[in-house]
């Protein structure tokens, strides 16, 4: 082995010394970065704590006025009016119905789109379509709201003449289409991450693209896809402007998507667009409603987490 002049100039001891210095620095950087990273992660916990703090603080005051039993059993929600009722059920029902309609559209739509893009479409189609889909996610939701109210509802009214102007069906459908890109894009990323060797294994067995997609790629990408679904659900539950504009804002305890009803978010935005004096019961209602919403999404997520853990176990 020929030792070069370049190398000879640096004695072995010198090299070792330099390495040691460098290693010390690298380790110091490592320790610093570990602290920085921890701080960053801790910050997101801080955000949650902030939210919980703000929500709980006002909600506590709210529940001093309103017994929990009323909150969960009364079927009317008119907290800002003379004959005040504080039953969250109508808002909850509205939220669940609009979300359900949206998810019936978004989950199959998003999954099918993702499978199509990742397993069927050629690279060129995928690279062209995906950005456009992502663009759908960037359209202000107000626009979608008016689109539902002024375009889709009249269309639906032609099929179903008795459909009221404000209805949960139209809002839910548009919301569903709006959420498709979220589900599709994240699912597609997850599917793309499945190693090529696994696909090859499946194709070599004589599987078609569909079989490979459904039996190998989707299970392999399941954690990512489940994440996409949960994000989609949360978006549906938390979407504000579309339902505020198109679903009507009248609290209405019904599970019929052909009727109009207010959702929790529609209520909050309707109230915060106006102005409610700080410290009034009206002000506290939006936090109590917000807390409910927070807990609903939390429940979804825990459910999703358990589902994922369970499905992983099967493999």
């Amino acid at each position: 082995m020929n030792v070069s002049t370049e190398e000879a100039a640096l004695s072995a001891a010198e090299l070792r010394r330099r390495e040691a210095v460098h290693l010390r620095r690298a380790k110091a950087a490592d320790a610093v970065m570990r602290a920085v990273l921890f701080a960053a992660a801790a910050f997101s916990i801080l955000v949650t704590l902030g939210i919980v703090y703000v929500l709980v603080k006002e909600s506590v005051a709210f529940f001093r006025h309103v017994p929990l039993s009323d909150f969960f059993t009364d079927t009317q929600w008119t907290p800002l009016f003379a004959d005040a009722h504080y039953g969250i059920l109508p808002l909850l029902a509205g939220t669940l119905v609009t979300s359900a309609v949206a998810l019936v559209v978004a989950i199959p739509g998003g999954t099918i789109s993702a499978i199509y893009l990742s397993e069927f479409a050629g690279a060129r189609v995928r690279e062209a379509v995906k950005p456009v889909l992502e663009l759908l996610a960037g359209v202000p939701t107000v626009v979608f709201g008016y689109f539902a109210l002024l375009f889709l509802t009249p269309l639906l009214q032609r099929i179903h003449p008795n459909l009221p102007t404000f209805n949960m069906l139209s809002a839910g459908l548009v919301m569903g289409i709006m959420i498709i890109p979220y589900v599709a894009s994240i699912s597609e990323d997850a599917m793309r991450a499945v190693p090529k060797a696994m696909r090859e294994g499946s194709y070599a067995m004589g599987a078609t693209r569909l079989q490979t997609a459904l039996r190998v790629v989707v299970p392999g990408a399941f954690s990512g896809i489940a994440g996409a679904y949960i994000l989609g659900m949360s978006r549906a539950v938390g979407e504000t402007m579309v339902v505020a504009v198109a679903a009507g804002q009248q609290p209405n305890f019904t599970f019929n998507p052909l009727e109009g009803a207010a959702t929790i978010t529609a209520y909050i935005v309707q109230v915060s667009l106006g102005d409610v004096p700080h410290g009034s019961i009206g002000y506290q209602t939006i936090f109590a409603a917000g807390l409910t919403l927070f807990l609903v999404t939390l429940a979804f997520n825990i459910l999703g987490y358990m589902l994922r853990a369970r499905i992983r176990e099967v493999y």
Partner: protein
Amino acid sequence: MSVAADPRAIERIARANERRDAAFAVLGLLVLFVALLVLTALFVDLLIDGWPRLNWEFLTGYPSRFAHRAGILPAIVGTFAVMLVTAAAAVPVGVLSGVYLEEYAPRNWLTTVIEININNLAGVPSIIYGLLALGLLVHQFRLGESILAAGITLALLILPMIIVATREALRAIPSAVREAVYALGATKWQVMWHHILPYSTGGILTGVIMGLARAIGETAPVITIGALTFIAFLPDPPFKAEFPFVSFEWLTAPFTVMPIQMFNWVSRPQAAFAVNAAAAGVVLIVMTLAMNAAAIVIRNRFRRRVRW
């Protein structure tokens, strides 16, 4: 050999499978087509409505009581300024949190709770971030109704999206690569900085883009912190001729953003303002398009560089 012996039987099975395959391809195209059709319908509708106002004066004009004179320059500048703050705040914090949670945090009940919490945070409705910002940023921290407050609010909103996207991107990197780097004596941070982060940049960027695209059209939380609507001037420029050349005054300046301007016009009684709203919608979508396009170029460059 039972089932598979006969080439004709195989052919039959294969044909049946392929019919399903083809049917799915049609279905997939159809779904994409519908989704794209909705987008197209929406965009064309906006374009037709807003067409009369889509001109240079509109882009460079200030608000006015006359719909045909009103412009959106302050809203565009405001949107850019807010997005700048949002990205500057959310990307580092989000990516670093994602790295910590995915690569550093020990796997225990605490991390499980944190994981659920982050996912949940991603699903917290934007309006609640608005309430948080109103309660904490505007009142407690006295940031007022400033670009800084709005930027941070939207940053908080997209933070979980970026964290989740970062984690997914990191997870996609084969552990063999990590092992290879560790085996050479790299520190954890070197593994991250030299390898894992560069290889996952594409995925992280996707998350960032989706987050910013969401933030740019977000109305509700900016309303709750009380963005102003009549702003007939621009914030101070960040660069100055005299020392120290940079200025952060723009951070505390009053501002308006595109969706607020749109919402304001939409709720005007005069139909002419609806035209402005549509035109603003078109501009907003084009802005998002440009953002996406730029990001896709970057992402593809990364993807081309990193293959498995």
